[in-house]
């Protein structure tokens, strides 16, 4: 058989790219980038499979590796912390040059063996794949290797169970139920806790950020509606300053439009009772 020109071109395009991507595995600092490199290699591998008359394996490669295995990798990366960039400084003395040497040596040995070995003339899979590649594969897999396949099935089930067992976290304290939480809240009432959820931060015409307190029924800002962290950091904004800024803006707009008349048909849906409400709703409109 002969290799078609298209395949040759495909190979010479893909092979350097795949090699580069694989080298990225060694050199990139972030694990996520490494995962993307590997994904590229695997997709390229799938394409090469298809080109090599192994269309079934090509599909399986995409489904299993890029679809399942690499997704699993990404999940674990997210669990571990996707931001972490690895330091590439070597800590084990001599490991770096040893690794480089061994990698290059291994490549040299393998390439040497390949170049030294004499292969029979390529037969090609046209004949074997006459009944289509999946059928040909199935005939071998389910006839000659049926026992191995079943064993591998068992292995998969076992591995799945192993994954469950290994990542299972044993509970070391009794489970906290709704009832426990409710009881705790009621018990904490004397310390100033409330039964209801805390009020949400304020929502204003131009501002609905977490750092601005809401206004209470009496128009006073509710400090505890701002998340505690922001308050402690001193990042909470003052509600009155926001209101004042909005009011001055509204006033300027109205003056520009010549509509200095007060807003008569104010809908009284909210609990907001001060003048800010008018300005606010006017702005909404």
């Amino acid at each position, binding site marked *: 058989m002969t290799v078609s020109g298209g395949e040759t071109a495909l190979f010479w395009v893909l092979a350097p790219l*795949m090699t580069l991507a694989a080298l990225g595995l060694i050199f990139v600092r972030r694990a996520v980038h490494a995962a993307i490199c*590997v994904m590229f290699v695997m997709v390229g591998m799938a394409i090469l499979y298809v080109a090599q008359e192994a269309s079934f394996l090509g599909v399986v490669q995409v489904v299993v*590796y890029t679809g399942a295995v690499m997704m699993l990798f990404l999940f674990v990366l997210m669990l571990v912390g996707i931001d972490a960039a690895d330091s590439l400084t*070597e800590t084990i003395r001599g490991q770096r040059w040893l690794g480089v040497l061994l990698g290059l040596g291994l490549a040299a040995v*393998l390439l040497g063996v390949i170049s030294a070995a004499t292969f*029979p003339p390529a037969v090609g899979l046209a004949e074997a794949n006459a009944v289509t590649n999946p059928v040909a*594969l199935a005939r071998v897999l389910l006839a000659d290797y049926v026992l191995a396949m079943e064993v591998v099935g068992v292995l998969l089930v076992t591995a799945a169970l192993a994954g469950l067992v290994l990542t299972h976290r044993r509970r070391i304290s009794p489970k906290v139920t709704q009832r426990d939480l409710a009881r705790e809240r009621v018990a904490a009432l004397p310390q100033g806790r409330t039964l209801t959820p805390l009020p949400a931060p304020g929502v204003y015409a131009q501002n609905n950020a977490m750092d601005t307190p809401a206004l209470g029924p009496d128009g006073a800002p509710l400090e505890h509606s701002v998340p505690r962290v922001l308050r402690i950091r001193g990042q909470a904004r003052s509600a009155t300053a926001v209101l004042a800024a909005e009011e001055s803006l509204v006033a300027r707009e109205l003056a520009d439009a010549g509509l200095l008349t007060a807003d008569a048909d104010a809908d009284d849906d909210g609990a907001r009772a001060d003048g800010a409400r008018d300005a606010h709703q006017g702005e909404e409109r």
Partner: protein
Amino acid sequence: MELTNYLGLAAVLFAVGAATVLLRRNAIVVFMGVELMLNATNLAFVTFARIHGDVTGQVLAFFVMVVAAAEVVVGLAIIVMIFRARRSASVDDVNLLQS
């Protein structure tokens, strides 16, 4: 083009995967290196299947994939466990074998 070019590519990828295992400290990246090595062998299997005109090579590659999938499940579970215990995914931190 000769089919042995595929084998050469497989060899290079395998060596790169091995070097990754030796050089990287992040357990997940090391694991990716292992996957890369497995894939390189798969490519060699597929190429040999084509050279010999026998799909058995592809069947073997298929088995490798399945076993690799199982291995990934268990391996990643172990990594997660180690991370939980040590707050680190570095293989160098797991050196209790040291005397």
